[in-house]
């Protein structure tokens, strides 16, 4: 099980993680399939998640989801976590997870690791929080 703060972009289905769905964007259609971008987070970090097809309607904000064999990579120049062809999403609960909206792993600029051409490292932070899903105002 990987914490979100430790995920690294790669062209592999190698991410097993658990997170809570904070917010869903609009569901749109891309070719034959529905897609929906969402903000998800665990206690250590947040990231943008790409739901695909039937996944779009199956999950609501507040759901706690387990991802196995997921992939964290660039899709249309944005960095998203997704199940991909070989990954699996399962709802395992709701509500009972605290979360951090910063750092947001999708809002980091990554560069190839000089010591390992197959890997990436963090270069600089583009934004502390998601620029697509702004944080709700602090309340009483």
């Amino acid at each position, binding site marked *: 099980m990987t914490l979100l703060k430790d995920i690294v972009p790669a062209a592999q289905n190698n991410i097993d993680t658990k997170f809570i769905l*904070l917010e869903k964007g609009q569901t749109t259609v891309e070719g034959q399939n529905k897609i929906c971008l969402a903000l998800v987070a665990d206690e250590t970090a947040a990231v943008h998640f790409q739901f695909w097809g039937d996944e779009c309607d199956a*999950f609501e*904000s507040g759901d706690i989801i387990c991802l196995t064999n997921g992939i964290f990579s660039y899709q249309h120049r944005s960095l998203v976590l997704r199940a991909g062809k070989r990954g699996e999403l399962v*709802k395992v609960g709701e*509500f009972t997870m*605290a979360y951090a909206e910063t750092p947001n792993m999708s809002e980091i600029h990554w560069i190839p690791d000089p010591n390992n051409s197959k890997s990436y490292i963090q270069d600089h932070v583009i934004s502390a929080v998601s620029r697509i899903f702004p944080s*709700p*105002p*602090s*309340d009483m």
Partner: protein
Amino acid sequence: MASRLTLTPPFEAENEFEASLRQAFESLKPTLRPPFSLSIPNPDEYALLNRAILHGVLTEPHFAKTHIKHLHALVTDGYATFLNSLLNVVHHLYPRLLASVKTQLLWVSEETVRVLGIGYDAVLVSLLRQIGGGNCGDGNLWLCSKLVTLFLEQFECLLEDAPHVLSFALYSFLRVLADHCRVGVEKLETLKRLEIHFCVKIVREEFHLSLLIGRDFIRLLQDLVHVPEFRAILKDIVFDPFKFNAVGFEFKDVSQIYSTRTSSRYSLLRISPEMEIQLRFLLSNVKLGHQRRHQMWFARKFLNDPDKEFVAVDIVRFICCAHHPPNEVIQSDVVPRWALIGWLLTACRSSHAVANVKLALFYDWLFFDERVDSIMNIEPAVLLMVHSVPQYIDITRSLLEFLLHLVDNYDVERKDVIVKGVASAFQLLVRKGVVRSLDVLTSCPALSPGLREGLGRLLSCGKVGSS
């Protein structure tokens, strides 16, 4: 493949406990039809058989009686194992059970009462907790109807074997009747009559069971004062207390009820297990300033239509009476109880609901006695008033006005008792350092002089009159 207990949607894992029941049933299916084996199972086999039979009872209505006969034949522990599994089904799975499974569930629960199985009382209490507040949907009304009927049919048995359960049922149905009376719809008439009959039966025939509830019994009755039977009961409690058969207790005056603190077991009754998990999580794990999403999800699930705003009353009683965070949590940056209550107050629309929520918040203040009451029950109200200065001064003002109004009007005959209660509540909160002093209220320039003076008088009354 055996029938399911719930409908698991796609992308969701089957509940582990549900899976264990189904697997037990599938593996033992051949042995669940007569002739039954006479060999004595070892403990593991016994546990597996109990789970299998439970699954069979819930999913095979035509064979339910056969399964029960089998259970009666092999039981060696007073049905404790069987009832423990049944309790888990109710507590963790009830909201998602298929309708036919719920029917079987109620049937088998009554069977366990008949045989006085060990633990049937916990099952009945868990079923009571599944009655939703402010919910007049068919499923919820069906559950009310099945339960009130069960309690009436098993009345003598319960009275003798588990009278506390009748007391819990009384609390639940008095509360639920307020919802049913408020809605005033034709389809509710028969159910209302039955619920009124049940409540009146306990109060008139076994008054000591009402006394077990403590002061919240009066609070619940007052919400039903427009119903003739309950108006008569209230009148008798206040003016003719000797009318009541209070076995082993000399009931002389309503103030004896006022001075009995209501156990947190009652405030838990009107909170479903799911709601309880979410509320306790909010008050233990979510940081102040970051609770907006969790509050929104909670409201979307439990407060999502106008009828449900009265559930806030039950939630406030729960927060004050049944959720007492330890010091580490109180001193941390976790959402404090007063903040959640402040949010609930703003979530109410009607003035009737707002007034009831405020009464729920202050109820343990009115007759506060350090010797029997807990400071944790009164702490949220004073902190909400104090922390709302100056940014949310309207809240402080409306709460103080309400409190002073309550002191003058709640029970005019016993105003001295109430003044003493509220004053000693304030004094204890200062003495224990919950608030450093009340100057923040008595010297607050944003509050009217009249209000400040009223509070000042109340505080000094208490001191002069204290024994």
